[in-house]
């Protein structure tokens, strides 16, 4: 180990969890139940990481007696394109996840002493929890159970010994130290890729899938899950609340949802910020020259406006980050009782992640993935209910932690290979030797030009996607001229590289899939093509270049048949 110590500070553990957001904390807590050493680290500070604290505090729920019905509905909605094993596992674990999270200290909305299950639409159930304080609660529980935690460490790459993952390299953002972690099992729970665009998802930089890819893990579903949310233009932020859609109007003052989706104007519907129907209506109106789109809440009282959100509960922490109306008043100086609010579709994040089995094992020995760093095809590229992100983080986190913990309890330790560590660290630190004039943020914001416009990413078409890929590659090539003065800069560099990679993989997979289904729509192949495309697209690093392949949906092995 003396050689290794020359390369960085070596820390040994049994299960290493990268990322202390919802998925990571669930994985760490569960892994600890195997009575092994667990270390979780994050680029932020434990208790405040990831999307959960800043999100809406909604957790999707499936009643235990309805699991099959739920999984079948999801399967039929996906056209049998989903991973049914995962749909059943996901639905089946949701009730358990709520119980576990409560036992770990998270506060849920209660009614008569029981967790209140809210019905937000046909077959749609959710629970509300105290999001801002949720991870602080999990941290406290983790501390009492002896989970080790390290803050402000930016994980940059995995380390392998032969074909098995044996650890990771991290940058100490504050202390400037290079860390070498040696573990029997590594869980990547670093979120998806939000490209620093939509503010709620600013913490997800695509690093998890990128490091998995570099180490040789298979990625899947990169062409699906690219989504837009509708948000407040002046704030650059999505608007939480399930009934606001009723008050969207065009420049002429015509209600746009009634015009395009009249069925949504009667009865009770929950229309989330990411609802494709809203994005559709907004885009159609603007294309017809009737933009911009406004939210018109003039004449409504504060109580009526609060009722439109339906996800605010006085028992739970009132979080200003989600209180857009307060932000509008205080930050943008908009008087919502007198003025209309200009709205804009906002690109949310790209889909896909490391392919995992129902134990959250990736295709690499010793490596697990959870939350948005993973992709399990449970919905076949669909989705469409609020709170699924948190539910997925909890379910995959718990499953990954359980599997990784048990593995680490019996598996032999593979030491860190010096040569491999040196190679990985030299690559990671290379920008420190340069004093380039390019700021990595320029690369990130150039990638926005390729991923945000709907002409590239919502109405996809081969020629335009190639154009977008050109933008991404040009942006990525600029990185060669970027240097880093400290580890903060270096982290920005690696994030820019990961985001460019996520965009490239999205478009390469989308170009390969010459059909339309779920969230992937191609103008030049607008029909679903089950004959040629009833398969998932995978991406794997083969000799330093991405190799795209397909994996037939194993329908004959599944429970529900067309």
């Amino acid at each position, binding site marked *: 180990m003396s050689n290794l110590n020359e390369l960085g500070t070596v820390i040994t553990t049994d299960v290493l969890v990268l990322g202390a957001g919802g998925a990571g904390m669930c994985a760490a807590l569960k892994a600890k139940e195997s009575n092994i050493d667990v270390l979780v680290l994050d*680029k*932020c*500070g*434990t*208790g*405040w*990481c990831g999307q959960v*604290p*800043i999100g809406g505090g909604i957790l999707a729920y499936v009643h235990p007696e309805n699991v099959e019905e739920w999984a079948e509905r999801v399967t039929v909605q996906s056209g049998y394109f989903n991973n049914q094993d995962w749909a059943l596992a996901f639905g089946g674990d949701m009730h358990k996840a709520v119980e576990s999270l409560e036992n770990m200290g998270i506060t849920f909305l209660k009614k008569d002493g029981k967790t209140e299950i809210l019905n937000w639409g046909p077959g749609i159930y959710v629970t509300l929890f105290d999001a*801002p304080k949720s991870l602080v609660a999990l941290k406290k529980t983790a501390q009492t159970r002896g989970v080790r935690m390290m*803050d*402000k460490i930016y994980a940059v790459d995995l380390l392998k010994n032969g074909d098995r993952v044996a650890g990771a390299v991290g940058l100490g*953002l*504050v202390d400037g130290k290079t860390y070498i972690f040696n573990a029997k099992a590594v869980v990547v729970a670093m979120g998806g890729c939000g490209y*620093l*665009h939509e*503010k*709620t998802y*600013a*913490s997800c930089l695509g690093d998890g899938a990128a490091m998995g890819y570099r180490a040789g893990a298979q990625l899947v579903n990169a062409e699906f899950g690219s989504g*837009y949310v509708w948000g407040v*233009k*002046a*704030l*650059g*932020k999505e608007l939480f609340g399930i009934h606001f859609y009723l008050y969207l109007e065009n420049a002429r003052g015509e209600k746009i949802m009634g015009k395009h989706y009249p069925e949504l104007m009667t009865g009770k519907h929950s229309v989330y910020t990411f609802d494709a129907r809203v994005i559709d209506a907004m*885009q159609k109106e*603007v*294309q017809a020259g009737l*933009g911009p789109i406004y939210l018109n809440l003039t004449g409504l009282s504060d109580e009526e406006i609060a009722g439109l959100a339906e996800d605010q509960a006085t028992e739970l922490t009132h*979080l*200003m*980050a989600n209180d857009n109306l307060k*932000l509008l008043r205080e*930050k*943008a100086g908009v008087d919502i009782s007198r003025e209309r609010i200009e709205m*804009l*579709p*906002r*690109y949310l994040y790209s889909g896909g992640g490391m392919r995992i089995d129902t134990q959250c094992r990736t295709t690499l020995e010793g490596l697990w993935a959870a939350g948005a760093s993973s992709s399990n095809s449970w919905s076949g590229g669909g989705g469409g209910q609020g709170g699924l992100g948190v539910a997925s983080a909890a379910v995959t986190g718990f499953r990954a932690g359980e599997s990784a913990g048990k593995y680490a309890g019996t598996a032999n330790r593979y030491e860190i290979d010096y040569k491999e560590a040196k190679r990985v660290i030299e690559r990671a630190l290379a920008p420190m030797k340069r004093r380039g004039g390019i700021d990595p*943020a320029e690369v*990130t*914001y150039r990638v*926005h*030009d390729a991923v*945000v*416009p*709907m002409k590239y990413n919502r109405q996809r078409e081969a020629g335009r996607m190639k154009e977008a890929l050109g933008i991404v590659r040009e942006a990525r090539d600029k990185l060669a001229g970027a240097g880093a003065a400290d580890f*903060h800069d270096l*982290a*920005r560099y690696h994030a820019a590289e990961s985001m460019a990679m996520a965009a490239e993989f999205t478009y390469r997979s989308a170009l390969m899939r010459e059909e339309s289904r779920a969230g992937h729509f191609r103008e030049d192949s607008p029909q679903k093509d089950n004959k040629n495309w009833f398969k998932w697209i995978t991406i794997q690093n083969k000799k330093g270049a991405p190799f795209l392949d397909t994996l037939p949906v194993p329908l004959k092995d599944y429970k529900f048949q067309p």
Partner: protein
Amino acid sequence: MTVRNLDREKCTGCGICVACCPMDVLRLDEGAGKAYVAYPKDCVACWGCESFCPVGAIDVSPERGRGELVSPY
């Protein structure tokens, strides 16, 4: 700058803003026991620090440190 004010008088140095910042914009001055804005241009105005600050010491403006808003249309 998008963290337009960090009131050092109010700041208790609890470190929550440093912990929640996804962009590593804020750091803790251990000596003074106060948070400070170390990398202002990287702020993306997510409002995490302002929302979570227990003493209301932080004021974030809606504009990002940089990066024009790309139109989706």
